[in-house]
């Protein structure tokens, strides 16, 4: 009885200790330094990435002894940003995709950094189309576009070889993609072509496919309203393409519930021949999904049709609206140093490249320039000696990208419309008798209701 009593008392004490430790937040900064919580990588990034970050963190802290940088694992995903903001768990500096930035802007959930950007002196160097994503109606700037990408066709060079295809001559038209997919699935038994279908990525890729076939899924009426044009020849062409590969050629494997993470995993594991995704995917593939670099190939997404282009996107480094002026100043310093300077300043670019190469992090991943083309080209020459991504395996992309028209993602209710389109893509891939015109008409109806509501 006594020992039981002791056990229970011990239990309660332990509980009390645990509870108080847990309740005690990691707030209080010591020694008068400004504590700055910055976003680092998504959960699952390997240790080397964090080591590289630690090097850079140390470099920054040396230049700014009053700032204590704390890296925080970060991923832009639900559950909600609003709650993290309300709950105080949002890092002070974090990144936001273009599509969501506009909404956050309209809701007043981003910190105005116009002054800071102008003071830094490179406000006019940004690519105006990209800067537009972070500017409100009055011209105030709310973030630093830090990275942009275009859609590209990722392919597995090893599977190409096994299928008797030349990995240095990737497909340039959709028909060639179809033939390559067929060859891969017949000769290797792996999926020749795959498509994302879940968690809004289905809609995202369908939009990319639409744009590549010359269509647009949404029209901005210019007065704050949008019209849904999902049922257009480009979307139809893309869905018919998927339908043909899936049901006539059977070259898409047997697993169709794929989101961004799982399709990358399948690709890295050598189970997928080709798929479309962001051009900057290489970094994540190698760092988070253990892709073997020599297997990777990248080319431009085939474009067909009058108005065809390549869907672009990107993200923005922003400051949490919940910070005070000291932290805000520190945040801007960090953003400038960590994200921007390597694009503008030779020494910074080289320092950044050095820190990354030490930990075998990717340098030279194909991106779209957020600044003007000239600055971009120049920055490439600075880091030339450090580039460690197999750029010759991506020649298809580098050679072709600047001939393609970049098209921005639709602005109205982007994520909700993408979610709608997820089921359209899933239907086409899992139901042999999917009626494409009917699906698209219904999708238009539903999307318009979303765009008109609230």
């Amino acid at each position, binding site marked *: *009885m006594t020992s039981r009593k002791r056990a229970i008392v011990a239990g*309660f004490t332990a509980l009390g200790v*645990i509870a108080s430790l847990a309740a005690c937040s990691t707030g209080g900064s010591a020694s008068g330094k400004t504590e700055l919580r910055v976003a680092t990588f998504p959960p*699952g990034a390997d240790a080397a990435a964090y080591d590289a970050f630690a090097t850079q963190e140390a470099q920054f802290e040396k230049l700014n002894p009053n700032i204590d940088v704390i890296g925080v694992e970060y991923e832009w995903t639900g559950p909600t940003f609003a709650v993290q903001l309300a709950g105080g*768990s949002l890092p002070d500096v974090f990144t936001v995709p273009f599509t969501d930035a506009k909404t956050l802007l309209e809701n007043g959930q981003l910190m105005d950094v116009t002054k800071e950007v102008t003071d830094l002196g490179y406000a006019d160097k940004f690519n105006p189309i990209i800067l537009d994503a972070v500017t409100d109606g009055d011209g105030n700037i709310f973030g630093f576009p830090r990275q942009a990408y275009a859609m590209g066709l990722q392919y597995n060079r090893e599977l190409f070889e096994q299928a008797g295809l030349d990995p240095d001559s990737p497909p340039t038209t959709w028909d060639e993609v179809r033939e390559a997919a067929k060859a891969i699935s017949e000769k290797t038994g792996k999926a020749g072509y795959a498509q994302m279908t879940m968690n809004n990525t289905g809609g995202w890729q369908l939009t990319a496919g639409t744009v590549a076939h010359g269509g647009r899924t949404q029209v901005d009426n210019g007065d704050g309203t949008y019209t849904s044009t999902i049922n257009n020849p480009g979307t139809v062409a893309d869905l018919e393409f998927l339908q043909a590969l899936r049901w006539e050629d059977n070259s898409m494997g047997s697993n169709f519930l794929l989101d961004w993470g799982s399709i990358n*995993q399948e690709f890295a594991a050598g189970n997928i021949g080709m798929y479309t995704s962001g051009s900057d995917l290489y970094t994540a593939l190698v760092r988070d*999904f253990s892709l073997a670099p020599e297997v990777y190939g990248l080319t431009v997404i085939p474009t067909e049709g009058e108005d065809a282009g390549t869907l672009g996107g990107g993200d923005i480094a922003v400051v949490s609206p919940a910070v005070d002026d000291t932290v805000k100043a520190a945040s801007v310093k960090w953003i400038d140093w960590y994200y921007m300077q390597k694009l503008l300043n030779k020494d910074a670019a080289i320092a950044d490249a050095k820190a990354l190469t030490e930990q075998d992090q990717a340098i030279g991943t194909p991106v779209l320039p957020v600044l003007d083309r000239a600055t971009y080209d120049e920055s490439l020459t600075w880091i030339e000696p450090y580039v460690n991504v197999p750029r010759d395996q991506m020649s298809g992309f580098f050679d072709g990208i600047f001939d393609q028209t970049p098209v921005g993602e639709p602005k109205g209710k982007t994520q909700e419309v993408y979610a709608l389109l997820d089921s359209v893509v899933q239907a086409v891939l899992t139901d042999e008798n999917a009626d494409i015109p009917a699906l698209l008409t219904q999708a238009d109806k539903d999307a318009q209701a979303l765009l008109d509501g609230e």
Partner: protein
Amino acid sequence: MSDTDRGILSTFDRRGRGVRAGMSFVHVLLFGGLVVAGLGPILWLGKAAVTSTQDTITQPIALWPHGIDWANLTQAWFEVHIDQYFLNTVVIAVGSWLFSLALATTAGYGLSVLRPRYAGILNGAVLATLFVPSVVLLVPLYLTIVHPPVGQSLLNNYLAVWLPAAANAFNILLVKRFFDNLPREVFEAARTDGAGPIRLFWSIVLPMSRPILGVVSVFAIIASLKDYLWPMLVLPDPAVQPLGVRLPAIQSQVELDVFLAALAISTIIPIVLFLAFQRVFLRSAGLGGAVKG
């Protein structure tokens, strides 16, 4: 004349050859069915945890065609940091257990033994919550965690999991019922000996309640290990997440064999607890139905 230890089949029935054969068949069916269906997947997981990815994919049913890959387990434990999530799971489970037990016993004691005037109302209020489906609580409870009545947000704080877990009407009613059935004479005797209510609780009632404490403990711990949606919502920081919440999130970044090893590791606690405390588990499972009946 009557068989006290009989079911549908009487002793006489069982002597018949047809019935004997039938019963042997039943044994085979039960054993085979339960082993294959009940144990099969779990055994497979154990096997796959030490199999390489290639073997698991190309020959899923075969037994280690290319040898046992113990590295999966160490990789899962160290590189994927399963040890951290394992620890989180344990901390959460222990906390839930203690909070649930503390609340259920004190509340049951108050409602059953002490019985102040307002006990009836309280009892009714607690009972009423049993009839409200948990879905109704989801969103407002979440907002309560984000904006608690006192203090800052409880997000990423284990109390956000422990306290709602303790607010379990079923446990309280179980304990109360049990206390109701305790012989009142013992209490009277203790009271005349000068025991106050706290002493009575600690030294008389609790020691007599071992069976129900076991049952409530099982419920609390199993509920904690089974929880997914709630911890996922209130513990967004990966560093404090338990295994159940973390595993789906990292699936795409972890190799299949290591992932299966991680899955296997996360079954250790429940299985060990079950095997060690089988009778308590099975009694509480049966009790669940009896009380509801």
